[in-house]
């Protein structure tokens, strides 16, 4: 290793690193939108993006995980788009829309001239075919079946007007039309059975078209020439800049970061918190955005003898030191949760004042509830130990360490938690069985209706809640078509969930990408998934 011949090269490497670092630092201090070197966006180029796992199924209407959604998103357009900054719903394939006062009927007026890549027009008929199709997919449309709950049907009013009706108020549907899940596919795709449209036969109207998907290897996409019906959010109206887009599957995280560092790929997803410092110091830029929806949290099952006591739930809410968890287990890209919704969710309200770290206050609550510290340091009451079972699924690498830290934090105040891990599939089964005090997890969704999915006593109700007030507020937001009025209901619901400590939010899941210096304007859409239309290479 001390071979003198290697010396000059090492000096050179460190020199390059210093130069790259100072360049990166300069770029950061001006503005992240600025491109170093002052080059301007231009067409052409082939971008390679490394995915952390095989997408398995890239049909946007069936896909549920990020690695499938990145390639799937580029193939389709949606009726509307959502501004990731403001949460406002803006035109895309629909140039305007009307929502009935009770949020049961949605009328969309489509723009003219948009076509699917097989030449067929994007019209009202296509809208009807797609929504009917998603309902027919049933549970195979993992996300879509929920968005279209209570779907009565779509009426083709004329070539460019479609009216979608629901049996019950469904305010979240407008936001749902901005998602990839309700992105429109051509009739030739929609009529196929679910399994025939996972790896092939996916014809959409999006800025890229599918060239080839080889499972476990790569997804190849090509720019659609003549594409002019992009979202009103985009600054570029014409076709995408990139000629070609390749998503390579690289499951091993060390190989993924190494591939980026050695220039074998241009961008990578699924950057683990422990890989962030290395990438940063090597001069690569990290781009991150919190996922909207429910943050990672402990969600209570109030049917259990200990957790049914509000004082215990509140005490736990006060004991957990969110900042310590973020600082110890995660990285600078992550933030502690500040409400029952993540900060990027529409209608999010900062309630961090309610989530203060207050061990003394918590212990007072536990004392008042009759839980006295026993000889082994664990509190007891009537001969029963303050011991709680937490179930969790392996959907995020740092879950275990985060939970172990929570376990330590709670133990200091005399609360014991036992952790039961499960595979992702098994987790669902465990939650249905209900043999636990808290479940650990998160859900990504931009629309605040996710609160109703999580906490309404009328829906799945894994927490066994029976809270009329909360149910009422959740229903009100679901049937309110006016965005401002709806936001007020959503704010109240967030507050109620925290007041009653049904949920103890901890941190926000964050999507972290690593990018080489030549990748510009790779944008997060509202759900923190990727949009490549405006991306260009220098």
């Amino acid at each position, binding site marked *: 290793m001390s071979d003198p011949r290697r010396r000059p090269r090492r000096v050179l490497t460190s020199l390059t690193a210093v130069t790259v670092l100072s360049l990166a630092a300069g770029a950061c201090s001006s503005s992240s939108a600025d491109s170093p070197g002052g080059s301007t966006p231009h067409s052409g180029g082939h971008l390679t993006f490394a995915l952390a796992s095989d997408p398995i199924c890239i049909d946007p209407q069936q896909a549920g995980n990020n690695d499938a959604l990145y390639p799937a998103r580029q193939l389709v357009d949606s009726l509307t788009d959502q501004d990731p900054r403001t949460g406002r719903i803006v035109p895309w394939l629909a140039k305007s829309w009307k929502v009935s006062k009770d949020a049961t009927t949605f009328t969309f007026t489509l723009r003219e001239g948009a076509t699917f890549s097989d030449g067929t027009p994007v019209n009202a008929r296509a809208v009807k075919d797609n929504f009917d199709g998603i309902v027919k997919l049933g549970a195979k449309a993992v996300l879509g079946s929920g968005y279209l709950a209570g779907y009565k049907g779509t009426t083709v009013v004329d070539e460019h007007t479609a009216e979608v009706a629901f049996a019950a108020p469904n305010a979240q549907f407008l936001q749902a039309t901005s998602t990839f899940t309700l992105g429109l596919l051509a009739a030739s795709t929609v009529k196929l059975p679910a399994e025939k449209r996972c790896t092939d036969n996916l014809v959409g109207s999006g800025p890229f078209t599918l060239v080839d998907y080889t499972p*476990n290897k790569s997804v190849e996409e090509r720019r659609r020439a003549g594409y002019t019906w992009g979202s009103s959010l985009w600054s570029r109206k014409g076709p995408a800049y990139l000629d070609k887009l390749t998503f390579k599957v690289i499951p091993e995280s*060390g190989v993924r970061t190494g591939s980026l560092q050695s220039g074998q790929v241009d961008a990578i997803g699924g950057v683990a918190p422990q890989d962030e410092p290395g990438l940063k110091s090597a001069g690569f830029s990290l781009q991150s955005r919190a996922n909207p929806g429910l943050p990672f949290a402990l969600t209570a099952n109030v049917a259990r003898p200990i957790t049914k006591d509000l004082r215990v739930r509140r005490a736990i809410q006060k004991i957990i030191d969110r900042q310590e968890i973020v600082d110890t287990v995660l990285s600078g890209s992550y933030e502690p949760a500040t409400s029952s919704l993540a900060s990027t969710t529409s209608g999010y309200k900062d309630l961090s004042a309610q989530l203060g770290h207050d061990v003394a206050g918590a212990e007072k609550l536990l004392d008042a509830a009759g839980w006295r510290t026993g000889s082994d340091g664990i509190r007891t009451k009537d001969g029963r130990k303050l011991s709680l079972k937490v179930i969790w699924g392996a959907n995020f690498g740092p879950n275990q360490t985060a939970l172990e830290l929570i376990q330590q934090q709670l133990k200091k105040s005399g609360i014991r938690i036992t952790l039961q891990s499960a595979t992702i599939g*098994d987790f669902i*089964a465990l939650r249905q069985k209900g043999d636990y005090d808290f479940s650990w997890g998160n859900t990504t969704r931009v629309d605040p209706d996710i609160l109703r999915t999580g906490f309404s006593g009328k829906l799945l109700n894994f927490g066994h809640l029976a809270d009329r007030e909360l149910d009422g507020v959740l229903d009100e937001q679901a049937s309110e078509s006016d965005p401002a009025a709806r936001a007020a209901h959503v704010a109240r619901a967030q507050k109620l969930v925290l007041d009653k400590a049904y949920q103890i939010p901890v941190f926000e899941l964050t999507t972290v990408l690593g990018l080489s210096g030549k990748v510009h304007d790779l944008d997060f859409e509202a759900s923190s998934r990727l949009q490549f239309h405006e991306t260009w290479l220098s």
Partner: protein
Amino acid sequence: MTRYLTGRLLQAVLVLWAAFTLSFGVLYLLPGDPVSIMAAGGGDTNDISPEQLAELRKTYGLDKPVLEQYVSQLRHALQGDFGISVQSGEKVGHMIGTALPDTLRLTSGALLLALVLGGATALLGTYTQWRWLRQVLLSLPALGVSAPTFLVGLVLVQIVSFRWGLLPAVGNEGFDSLVLPMITLALPTGAVLAQVFAKSLRTTLSEPYVETALAKGASRGRVHFRHATRNASIPPLTVVGMLVGNLLAGSVVVETVFSRTGVGRITATAVASQDIPVVQGLVVFGALVFVLANLAVDLVYPLLDPRITTSAAVAR
């Protein structure tokens, strides 16, 4: 010979059936099922209702009694139909068929390399009269056996691909991308071969006929490489039959580390998502490879040592 082959075929069928049944049992004993994993979408803890899950289970026939599922799957498997993947909807036979060439290239290359490396190490290690070289060479196999495959792969990628930029780290394109995975897979296999072969050579070399040959004036090289090598190659040959199975297992790790497509990668994905039809297909495929490799080895024995006859192998 015919009787021998019939016997072996019957054994093979038994092994295949046992593999099928065992894997079916294990997959059903595991908590969770392919449907709940699919419904979880691989990421967020989605809120899917029990009714929706039940509907999906019905679609895949997972709601039927276990015995009924087993019998129906076995019947189809006997006709060579392993059904479709729960996750992707692709035909299992087609999935394995398209992935096979890549894995065959990798494993056959690795086997060849392992034979050369293992053989050379053992032969040289037992032949050389320099004590230090003998010790170095004969301690290499132990090192090769104990180094975890994924670690070797990662180190190779880091140095050869990321630092020196000589070879691609990932993918299946061309011979370049095959070199590192092949070496990674060949090292543990070659190490086992070297261990067995070296031991066998030492035993053979201490037999009386070696002394006789030397006394009759045969050179040390001739005795070592002609007489002893041939007689000592029966144990490593037996091991090769089993190592073929190991190579297939090793391809799971190697194909994942090097992001290659192939049977190993399908196995990793299918097991992670409890994709029962795919796993079943793979298990039967693996058992078939194992059976065939060992049959081939048995047929080669008499060529090396006329004292071994195939009928005796069955009687054993």
